[in-house]
C-alpha cells in the first residue's frame, strides 16, 4: 500500500476514534452509561500509561494499580490537608508520584526482569498496609473523602470528567507516539528485544528504563488523581488492589502492547465486558477465574496481543497481496503455533 493512502487511512481511523469518543456523552441515554464511559476512559488512560513501561521495555508491572492509588490519595490529601485547589493538587500529586518512582525504579530496575515484577507486586501490598495503618494521615479504613472540584449535578459532573479523561487520554497517547518515533523510543524497544545487546550497542539501558518508568508513573498518577476527583471516596482496600494492576496488564496484552491504540482498544474491550457481565449476570468469584484464564490464554498463545494476532491472521488470508518474506514466515509461525497446541 502506498505511503500516502496509508496515512490517509490511519488519519481517518484516528479521526473516527476521536469522534466516537467525543460524541459518546451526547448519545448516552442516562448518567449511568455516562459514568461507565468515564470508568472505561479511566482504564484506557491507565492501560496506556502502563504501556510506557510494558510496551516499550517489555518490563511487566503488576503494581500500576498502586501508582494510580497513590496518585489518587496524594491528590486527595493535598486538597484536604494542604488546601490546594483540586487541579493544582492533581499536578503536584503526579509530580510527587513521579519523584517517588525514581528510588522505586532504582531498586526495581537495576537488575533484570523478575525483581521488577516482585517489586511491583510488593508495592501494592506495602502501600495497602501503610495506607491502612497510617490512619491519622490517610484516614485509614475510614476512607478519604475528596471534595468535588465543581459544584455540579451528578450527570454534569460525569460529563465534565468524561471530557477531562478524554483530554488526558489524548495527551498520554500523544506522548506515547512521540516516544515511539524518537531515538529514545528506539533505544527502549531495543531493551525490550535484547537488553544485553542494546547495552553493548551503547544504550544506557538503566537510565532509559528509569526515565520511562518515571514518565509512566506520572501519567498513571494523573489518571489516579483524576479518578479521585471524580469518584470522591478513596479506600485503601480498593485503591491498592492487586486486581487493578492485573486488569491493566490484561487490557494492554489483549490489545497489543506494541501498538499505539492497543491498550485503548483493550481497555474498551475489557472495561465494557466487565460492566456488561456485571449488569447482566451479577458478580461471582468467577470473574476472577475469567480474568485468570483469559490472562493465561493470552500469555500462552497470543503474547503479542489478540488484536495483532487477528490482524496477522487476516493478512495471511489475504493472499493476493505481494508475498514478502514477512508473510511467509508469519504463516510458518502460525503453523508452529498450531503444532504446539
Amino acid at each position, binding site marked *: 500500500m502506498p505511503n500516502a493512502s496509508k496515512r490517509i487511512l490511519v488519519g481517518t481511523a484516528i479521526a473516527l476514534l476521536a469522534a466516537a469518543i467525543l460524541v459518546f456523552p451526547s448519545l448516552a441515554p442516562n448518567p449511568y452509561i455516562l459514568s461507565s464511559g468515564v470508568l472505561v476512559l479511566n482504564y484506557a488512560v491507565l492501560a496506556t500509561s502502563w504501556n510506557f513501561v510494558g510496551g516499550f521495555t517489555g518490563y511487566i508491572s503488576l503494581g500500576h494499580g498502586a501508582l494510580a492509588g497513590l496518585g489518587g490519595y496524594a491528590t486527595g490529601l493535598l486538597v484536604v490537608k494542604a488546601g490546594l485547589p483540586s487541579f493544582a493538587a492533581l499536578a503536584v500529586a503526579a509530580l510527587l508520584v513521579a519523584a517517588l518512582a525514581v528510588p522505586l525504579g532504582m531498586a526495581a530496575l537495576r537488575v533484570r526482569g523478575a525483581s521488577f515484577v516482585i517489586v511491583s507486586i510488593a508495592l501494592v501490598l506495602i502501600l495497602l498496609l501503610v495506607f491502612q495503618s497510617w490512619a491519622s494521615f490517610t484516614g485509614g479504613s475510614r476512607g478519604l473523602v475528596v471534595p468535588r472540584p465543581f459544584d455540579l449535578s451528578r450527570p454534569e459532573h460525569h460529563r465534565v470528567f468524561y471530557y477531562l479523561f478524554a483530554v488526558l487520554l489524548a495527551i498520554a497517547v500523544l506522548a506515547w507516539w*512521540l516516544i515511539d518515533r524518537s*531515538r529514545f523510543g528506539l533505544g527502549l*524497544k*531495543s531493551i525490550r528485544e535484547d537488553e544485553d*545487546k542494546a547495552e*553493548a*550497542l*551503547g*544504550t544506557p539501558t538503566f537510565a532509559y528504563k528509569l526515565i520511562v518508568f518515571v514518565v509512566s508513573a506520572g501519567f498513571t498518577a494523573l489518571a489516579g488523581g483524576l479518578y479521585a476527583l471524580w469518584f470522591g471516596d478513596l479506600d485503601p482496600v480498593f485503591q491498592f488492589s492487586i486486581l487493578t494492576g492485573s486488569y491493566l496488564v490484561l487490557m494492554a496484552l489483549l490489545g497489543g502492547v506494541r501498538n499505539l491504540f492497543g491498550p485503548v482498544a483493550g481497555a474498551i474491550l475489557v472495561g465494557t465486558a466487565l460492566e456488561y457481565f456485571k449488569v447482566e449476570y451479577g458478580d461471582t468469584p468467577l470473574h476472577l477465574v475469567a480474568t485468570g484464564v483469559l490472562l493465561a490464554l493470552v500469555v500462552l498463545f497470543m503474547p503479542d496481543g489478540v488484536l495483532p494476532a487477528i490482524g496477522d491472521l487476516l493478512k495471511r488470508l489475504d493472499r493476493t497481496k505481494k508475498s514478502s518474506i514477512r508473510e511467509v514466515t508469519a504463516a510458518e509461525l502460525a503453523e508452529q503455533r498450531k503444532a504446539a497446541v
Partner: protein
Amino acid sequence: MSLATHELRKAFGGVTALDGATVDFHPGKVNALIGPNGSGKTTYFNCVTGMIKPDSGRVTYKDRDLTGKAPHRIARAGLGRTFQLCRTFPRMTALENVLAAVPHGGLRSFRTRSDIERAMSWLTRLGIEHLARSEARDMSWGQQKLLELAGVLMAEPETVLLDEPAGGVNPALLDRIGTLIRELNAEGRTFVIVEHNMDLVMSISDHIVVFDRGRPIAEGPPSVIRSDERVLGAYLGV
C-alpha cells in the same frame, strides 16, 4: 597501545574462568583470540565489554581505565562487539536494528534522513539492503549475522570485537565475512576475533593470542602460532 588487559581474573563459584589474563592487542590490526572450548575466551570478551565484572585486574583502552564500567560506556568509548550466538532485535526491522546503534538523542525522531542514509549504506555494504523493512526474526541465520555486524558498525567503533563471526555460516558467506573484515581493517579499524575456524583465523589475522585455562599461553603471527607446540598441546589435550 589500544586495547589491553592486565591480570584479569574471574571465578564463577568454584570454577576459575579467567586466571590472570594479561593481553595487549595490536592497534590497527586484525587480532585473533583462539583456544579450546572452555578456555575463557567468551568470559574474557564479557569482562572487556563490561557485561561481567572481573574479580580483579584491569581493562584499559587507549590508556583509559575501563575496568568495571557499564557496557554502554565501554561501547561509547569505541569498542563494538558481536555475540557468540548472533543477537539481533527480533521484532524490529533490519533498518531499525541498525538505527538503534545511533548514539541516542532524546525525543528527536530516529528516522532522520542522514541516519537512514548511513544505515542503508551499511546494509548495502553487507548486501542485505533488500531486507531493510523485514523484521529480524524473519531473516535467515546468515542474514542475521550480517545484520548484527551492520548494527555494530553503525556505531562507528574504532575497535570491533567479534565472537565467532564464522559460527554456523556457509562457505560463501564465510568468504564474504573474511573479505569484509580485511576491508574494514584496511579502513583503519582494529579487530579482535574469537574464532574456531582455523582457516579463517590463519587467513585474515595479523596477530594471534592463544588462550588455555583462562590465560594466554602463546601469541604471535599466524606462521609462529601454527607451529607452536604449546598450542597443539592445549588443543589436543596432551
